[in-house]
């Protein structure tokens, strides 16, 4: 090569070099394009993939802490190409936060990371209080409340109180029953099983559906059946101030009883005003009490005692937080369960009651099984609204009303008692009729910041606890503020079904209680699955049924906030199987809180009422991606 040729080649090489590398350098990067979920259970697996730009170099997968299978997990292949998947397997224990790193072998070693929280039960752990009411294996109406410390691995300990007493030595009363072991197992969808082993009662099995990390709907599903709530505890040093309360249960002669009112705790003294509907004596209102005593508060499970209150000479409570407690009448001659919620420091008046949705349901000691759900628009002591009621066994024709127009009057602050009130539904032709036998409520206002259906929820607060003070029915419920919302997304569903009808040809009995708990997606349809606890095997030849459903949701064009879910056909997938051709109607308090009731038009002669609550993604994991060019 001569000098001239050599010079041309050198110039060309330099031009190529500077054109390609210096004046416009290529961008090399990496990102994790298939990321792990926010949370994984120990031993859980997830697909991962990373994608490079500007290079096709191999990708190396590592994790911290420790970069070992036991400390942070493992990969099915530790080296992939761009876009190629690797399977990540979480470590066998709940180690908490793990960082996964994908590093390119390209020049500069760009990398990207993602985080995954390795935790059992989607991170649900801590102190939780539970309560429920239902019908046990001996057909005793019972109440159960307690508290458990759920460890990170799902194991637990705790204590509970059980009461099914109804006088004359009937039923059982187990005070301070120690829960010596147990387990919580919850899937990513929030549905799971809670098992408790206690000294006195023995083994109890519950089905749970976590609405969020601090609240679950719960049913007992082990031969006893009941519905209630499970809530994260934040224990205060003491309880003080004014509370609204409501309980239902069985009196000392085996009769149904509902009791509600307001009380004030001053030191260890409790006084207040209450209403009661007793199946023997009938409804009474405006009784006052004093001399009740708040016992030593509180053990590590938030349990305390109240003596000589209107809800029993001997009562216990489990604290959820300063604003919410679960109450149990623990007399050996009668039993009841319920809640009390703070009234806060404000003053209530008629204007405190805004547009609201209510639910009201009796238990099995009712004369006539019933439920009522509706919405009201209050104004200066009067209200109008629309409601559904379903009564069975009354002999009334029809035995239900759908979207019935109701009106009436209400008063908050009766006798100068803050937050204590009543509501009367106008009669028709001089008799109950606006909402059939449902005619009178006692209403007990709660702090506008307190959500009575999810006590740890910072939204959806206010409203009141109610008891039904009608002549021919008695029960308990709540009344919560109604705001605009949608009925779409993921929901937890539960209902307490009394006197269920079935389709099986040869069950052992002809009545009972069944409790349903499920999860569903709401859109054009309400589609999902769940569990029905049916100890008397009325619906199927099994005590616990797995069910699926997909039912059309139709908004009531005449009544905003009301929806029909009809037909709500529940398909039983275990045992002999079959279907239960329910129909239901829904009243919406907000996007997150709805109540539903069985539509008597389904002709099943059963009555259910219950909750529908919007669910959120469980787990506290944080996913982030870092890109380093």
């Amino acid at each position: 090569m001569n000098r001239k040729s050599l010079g041309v080649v050198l110039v060309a090489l330099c031009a190529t070099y500077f054109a390609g590398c210096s004046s416009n350098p290529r961008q090399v990067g990496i990102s994790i394009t298939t990321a792990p979920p926010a949370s994984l259970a120990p031993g859980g697996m997830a697909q991962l993939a990373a994608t490079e730009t500007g290079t096709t170099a191999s990708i190396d997968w590592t994790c911290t802490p420790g970069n070992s299978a036991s400390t942070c997990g493992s990969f099915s292949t530790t080296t992939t190409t761009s876009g190629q998947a690797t399977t990540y397997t979480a470590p066998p224990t709940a180690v908490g936060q793990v960082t996964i790193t994908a590093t390119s072998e390209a020049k500069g070693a760009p990398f990207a990371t993602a985080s995954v929280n390795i935790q059992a039960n989607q991170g649900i752990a801590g102190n939780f209080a539970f309560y429920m009411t239902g019908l046990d294996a001996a057909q005793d109406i019972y109440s159960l409340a307690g508290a458990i410390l759920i460890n990170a691995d799902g194991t637990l300990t705790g204590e509970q109180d059980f009461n099914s007493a109804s006088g004359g030595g009937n039923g059982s009363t187990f005070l301070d029953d120690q829960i010596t072991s147990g387990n919580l197992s919850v899937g990513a969808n929030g549905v799971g099983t809670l098992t408790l082993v206690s000294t006195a009662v023995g083994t109890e099995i519950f089905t749970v559906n976590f609405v969020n990390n601090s609240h679950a709907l719960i049913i007992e599903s082990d031969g006893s059946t009941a519905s209630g709530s499970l809530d994260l505890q934040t224990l205060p040093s003491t309880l003080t101030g004014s509370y609204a309360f409501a309980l239902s249960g069985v009196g000392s002669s085996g009769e149904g009883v509902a009791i509600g009112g307001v009380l004030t705790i001053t030191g260890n003294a409790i006084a207040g005003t209450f209403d009661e509907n007793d199946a023997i004596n009938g409804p009474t209102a405006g009784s006052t009490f004093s001399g009740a005593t708040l016992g030593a508060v509180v053990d590590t499970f938030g349990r305390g005692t109240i003596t000589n209150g209107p809800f029993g000479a001997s009562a216990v409570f489990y604290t959820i937080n300063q604003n919410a407690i679960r109450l149990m009448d623990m007399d050996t001659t009668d039993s009841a369960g319920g809640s009390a919620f703070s009234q806060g420091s404000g003053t209530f008046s008629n204007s405190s009651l805004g547009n609201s949705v209510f639910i009201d349901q009796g238990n099995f000691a009712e004369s006539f099984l019933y439920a009522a759900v509706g919405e009201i628009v209050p104004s200066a002591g009067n209200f109008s609204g629309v409601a559904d009621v379903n009564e069975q066994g009354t002999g009334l024709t029809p035995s239900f009303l759908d979207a019935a127009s109701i009106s009436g009057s209400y008063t908050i602050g009766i006798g100068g008692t803050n937050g204590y009130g009543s509501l009367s539904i106008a009669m028709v032709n001089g008799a109950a009729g606006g909402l059939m036998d449902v005619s009178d409520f006692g209403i007990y206002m709660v702090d506008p910041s307190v959500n009575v259906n999810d006590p740890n929820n910072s939204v959806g607060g206010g409203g009141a606890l109610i008891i039904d003070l009608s002549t021919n029915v008695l029960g308990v419920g709540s009344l919560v503020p109604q705001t605009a919302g949608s009925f779409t997304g993921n929901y937890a569903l539960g209902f307490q079904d009394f006197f269920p009808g079935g389709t099986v040809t040869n069950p052992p009995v002809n009545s009972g209680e069944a409790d349903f708990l499920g999860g569903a997606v709401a859109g054009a349809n309400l589609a999902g699955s769940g569990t029905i606890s049916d100890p008397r095997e009325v619906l199927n030849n099994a005590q616990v049924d797995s069910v699926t459903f997909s039912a059309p949701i139709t908004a009531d064009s005449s009544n905003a906030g009301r929806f029909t879910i009809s037909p709500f056909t529940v398909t039983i997938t275990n045992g002999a199987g079959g279907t239960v051709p329910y129909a239901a109607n829904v009243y919406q308090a907000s996007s997150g809180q709805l109540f539903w009731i069985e539509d008597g038009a389904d002709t099943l002669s059963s009555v259910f009422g219950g909750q529908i609550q919007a669910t959120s993604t469980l787990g506290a994991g944080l996913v982030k991606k870092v890109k380093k060019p």
Partner: protein
Amino acid sequence: MKRWYPELGALVLLVFFSIAAPTHAQTAAATTKPAIPLRYDVSKEVTLDATVIGVPEKSSHAQSQPFLVLQTKSGLINGRLTSFAQNEKGGIAIRPGQQVKVTGVMMSLQAKQVLEVRTLEIDGRTYQIRTKRGFPLEHPERNVASTTELKGGLL
């Protein structure tokens, strides 16, 4: 699940009723609600001697009411018990051919006239099935001694 059912006799029951007064201080109710008529009107109660012709069937369909078919001097009547009276565990044992005395109110139920049974006397025992307001009582089979008027009262 383990449950305990202490078997207490009539004596204990009577003692219970004699000491069941509430221990906490409280005033009498300020008002008594309201003037809506009771669906079960105790003033219309009748007491009938009868022979059991049929017992409630354990049907799959809850729609079928738990009728007790009774032959009375004035003809056949359907007596309605409660679910508690018919529990498969310890319900009241009733067999066709037995002589009974029933007290209740005739009511119209699903286009049928039925006797809403409040008390049932059989084999020398009187079972309280409902309150005088027509509400069911839990476990009438265990309340066999409670033939005296029920006291009710606070929880």
